Structures are given as structure tokens and as C-alpha cells.
């Protein structure tokens, strides 16, 4: 919260767009600002009305360098924008650095994301220490179409203005904690010796030589990838990682997404009845890749580039009591299956489970 807990005394606030960045269509700027305002009005009793002239509660303007508020901007990058806490005159106003490359997508700086953050200040929030929060100080791109206000920000703004009037209270995503015993994963893969654990919009990244686990947005590495990756595996021989979501997959060559992706999973030989892949791992010794879907699995021959005959088979019949799989990867000849908060270490040669651990056993908890 901002020091002194400033807040607007009214719920019906006004805003005015004083000027526009030349880099975007006016309609796109209007849309970005409206969407940013709705981020906050959706979770509180607040309403925002646009006015064209006169003084509004929240004046939004694009300015450069010294713009007479004792807080000069610094040109491209660095400080992107700032905003003032609720109050008269400059109170609540949002200033955006007009020397930034403003966009409505993942290039440059996404105007919607930055304005939504600054409006948090306009309403009385200060910066959050939660790296997944909208009110975290550093810029992180999220596809506006996939944006959901995180729970940390909902808690903050509702502590100031109360809950939304909606019959069902909105909730938001929380930031995964590596040592949270209830942590589950969407997908896990190796990537050139590191391990990547996918969860929502995040990757928990574990380098074998480093104790800490790094938490990053998927979009930090791959802005074009969606959140919620459902399966992933590394083809070590080809130095590729394949990432799956719904009926599409992407290929990472090295660290970059290969051109021409996403492609349809049906190119790999799945029947149309398969809508998504839950988990996958590739056995570098046999060149076979195993895809897990619900309670069945397929086997794909990486050399022939086609599915083997005789599949799908029941997971239970060949992998023991594992049943269903959320995520899987192979390391040092063993396969690690994740289901909920449980992890199974499976010996593919002996076809038996040799150990059962917690899902976050790879992190130094």
C-alpha cells in the first residue's frame, strides 16, 4: 500500500486521455486504456468514465524527459512510466514516456500492461514483492488476451476499495513457489542439461550446478509461446524441444522457436479424437518418444517420424500404478513421471517404479 493509505473518496472516477503516442492507432490506445481500467473495475466497486475536456481524476498523457513534475523520464527503456497516488490535481495522473516503443503486442512495451500497472498506483497501490504480480516494479510481457489480474493485486486493491459488486467474486492466478508442497506441474522437460518445469505462465528453471531455482515468465524467453504449456520433451539427438498445448505444438531449436510453428499434432499421427497431450518424454537410447493422453499412451519413432503400430495402449498395463501422467521427462536412463504432487521414478529397462517422491524433489527445499 502507498504510504499514508491514500484512496479516492468516490467510486465513480473519471479519466481523460490528454494526448496519444504517434506509434499506435488512436483506437488501439483507447482500447488498451479501457482494458487496463477494466482490470481494476472488474474486481472492485470502482467505475471509470471517460471525459474529453475539463480536469479528470486520472489524466493520462505521453510526455518526454523533464515534464515539470520533478520526475524526468530518461529516454528509451529504463523508466517506462509513472503515476501519482490518489489526490487532487496531479493526484492519480499517469505519465507514459513517449520515447518508448509502445505497442499492442509483444514487441517493444505493451501499452496495456504498463498502463494497468500505473493505474494501480493511481488507485493507491504501491509496488509488490510478488514477482508474478501486476504491481511488481519491472516490466514483463503477458499477452493481453491471456491476462488475468493476479491474486496478489486483487487482495491489495480490495483491501482499499472492497470487493466487486459481482455475484461471484473474481479470483486470480498465484505465483508458484518452488517449495510449496502442493506444487504440481503442467509439463517438464530437459533443455541442454537444464530442467524446465512449466506451470501456468511460468517456468521454474533448474540448472544442475546451481542451488537456486529460477522463476521466469514463459514470455520472457519465448514471447510468442502461450502460457499453460501441457507437455514437453527434448529430442537430445536433434537438439530440439517440442512443446504442446491443445492440438498444437512448437519446436525449440536450441533456444529459439523454429519458424513455421505451431503445427497441428495430427501431423505426428494422433487420431482426431485426441484433443491435447498431457505429457511426453523421449528415450534417447531407443529413439522412441512416449506421448501420454488421459489413461493411454502412444509411441512415436523419431527416426521413422511416425507412430508405431499397436498403440494406444493403457498406461496401467506398461507403467505400473502410475495411471495418469501430468508431466514426464527422462534423465540418466530413468523416467520421472509427475501426477499431482507425486513423482515416480521409473526404470524403463526393468519396467518398474523404483522410487516415489514429492513433485518438487528437484528443488533444494
Amino acid at each position, binding site marked *: 500500500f502507498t*504510504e499514508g493509505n491514500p484512496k479516492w473518496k468516490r467510486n465513480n472516477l473519471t479519466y481523460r486521455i490528454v494526448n496519444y503516442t504517434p506509434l499506435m492507432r488512436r483506437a488501439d490506445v483507447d482500447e488498451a486504456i479501457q482494458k487496463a481500467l477494466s482490470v481494476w473495475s472488474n474486481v472492485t466497486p470502482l467505475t471509470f468514465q471517460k471525459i474529453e475536456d475539463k480536469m479528470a481524476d486520472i489524466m493520462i498523457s505521453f510526455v518526454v524527459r523533464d515534464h515539470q513534475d520533478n520526475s524526468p523520464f530518461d529516454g528509451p527503456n*529504463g523508466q517506462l512510466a509513472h503515476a501519482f497516488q490518489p489526490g487532487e490535481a496531479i493526484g492519480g495522473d499517469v505519465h507514459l514516456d513517449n520515447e518508448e516503443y509502445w505497442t499492442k503486442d509483444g514487441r517493444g512495451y505493451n501499452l496495456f500492461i504498463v498502463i494497468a500497472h500505473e493505474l494501480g498506483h493511481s488507485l493507491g497501490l504501491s509496488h509488490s514483492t510478488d514477482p508474478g504480480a501486476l504491481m511488481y516494479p519491472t516490466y514483463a510481457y503477458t499477452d493481453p488476451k491471456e491476462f488475468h489480474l493476479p491474486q496478489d493485486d486483487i487482495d491489495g486493491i480490495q483491501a482499499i476499495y472492497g470487493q466487486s459488486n459481482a455475484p461471484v467474486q473474481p479470483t486470480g492466478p498465484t505465483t508458484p513457489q518452488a517449495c510449496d508442497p502442493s506444487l504440481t506441474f503442467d509439463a517438464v522437460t530437459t533443455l541442454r542439461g537444464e530442467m524446465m518445469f512449466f506451470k501456468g505462465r511460468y517456468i521454474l528453471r533448474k540448472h544442475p550446478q546451481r542451488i537456486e531455482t529460477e522463476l521466469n515468465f514463459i514470455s520472457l524467453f519465448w514471447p510468442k509461446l502461450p502460457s499453460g504449456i501441457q507437455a514437453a520433451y527434448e529430442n537430445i539427438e536433434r537438439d530440439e524441444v517440442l512443446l504442446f498445448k491443445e492440438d498444437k505444438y512448437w519446436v525449440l531449436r536450441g533456444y529459439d522457436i523454429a519458424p513455421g510453428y505451431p503445427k497441428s499434432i495430427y501431423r505426428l499421427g494422433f487420431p482426431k479424437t485426441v484433443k491435447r497431450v498431457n505429457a511426453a518424454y523421449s528415450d534417447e537410447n531407443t529413439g522412441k518418444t512416449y506421448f501420454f493422453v488421459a489413461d493411454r499412451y502412444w509411441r512415436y519413432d523419431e527416426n521413422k517420424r511416425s507412430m508405431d503400430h499397436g498403440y494406444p495402449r493403457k498406461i496401467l498395463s506398461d507403467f505400473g500404478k502410475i495411471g495418469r501422467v501430468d508431466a514426464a521427462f527422462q534423465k540418466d536412463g530413468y523416467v520421472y513421471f509427475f501426477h499431482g504432487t507425486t513423482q515416480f521414478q521409473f526404470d524403463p529397462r526393468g519396467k518398474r517404479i523404483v522410487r516415489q517422491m514429492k513433485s518438487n524433489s528437484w528443488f533444494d527445499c
Partner: protein
Amino acid sequence: FPVAPEAEEERKNIALVETYLQNFYNLQKDDQPHVRLKSVNPLPEKLKEMQEFFGLKVTGKPDLETLEMMKKPRCGVPDIGKYV
């Protein structure tokens, strides 16, 4: 003589750290260096505050991870203290 690259780099890093902490962590601008000789240098403590805020290793030293965080594009509102 041209300054040795490392020294130049280090000088830049120190300037970055000082400006960052002045902008966002209320480090007082200190334009009386001789006074500094007498008083305790507040920079390590402010640096620790910043490292703690960002969940970095709290060393009080401008290590690589800390410098990388400081170079990230960000909001101009301070992380602590007043912004009026």
C-alpha cells in the same frame, strides 16, 4: 591514458547503482563527498533493501544478478518511500 575497460565498466556500474537507489530506494543524493568521509555510507544498506525487495541474494554488494535487475525496464514510481 584511456581508463582500463574494467575500471570504466565498474565506474558505470557504481553510477547505475547510485542512481537506481536514489530513484527508487530513497538514497539521499550526496553532493558533499568530504561529508561522506565522516558519515556511514548508506549505500550497502539501501542495496540490501533493494535485493530483499526483489528476492535476490541479500549481499549488500552490486553483484551480477543485482545489476541485471537494475537494468530491467521498469515503472518510475519508487519501491519504497513517498512519491508525491
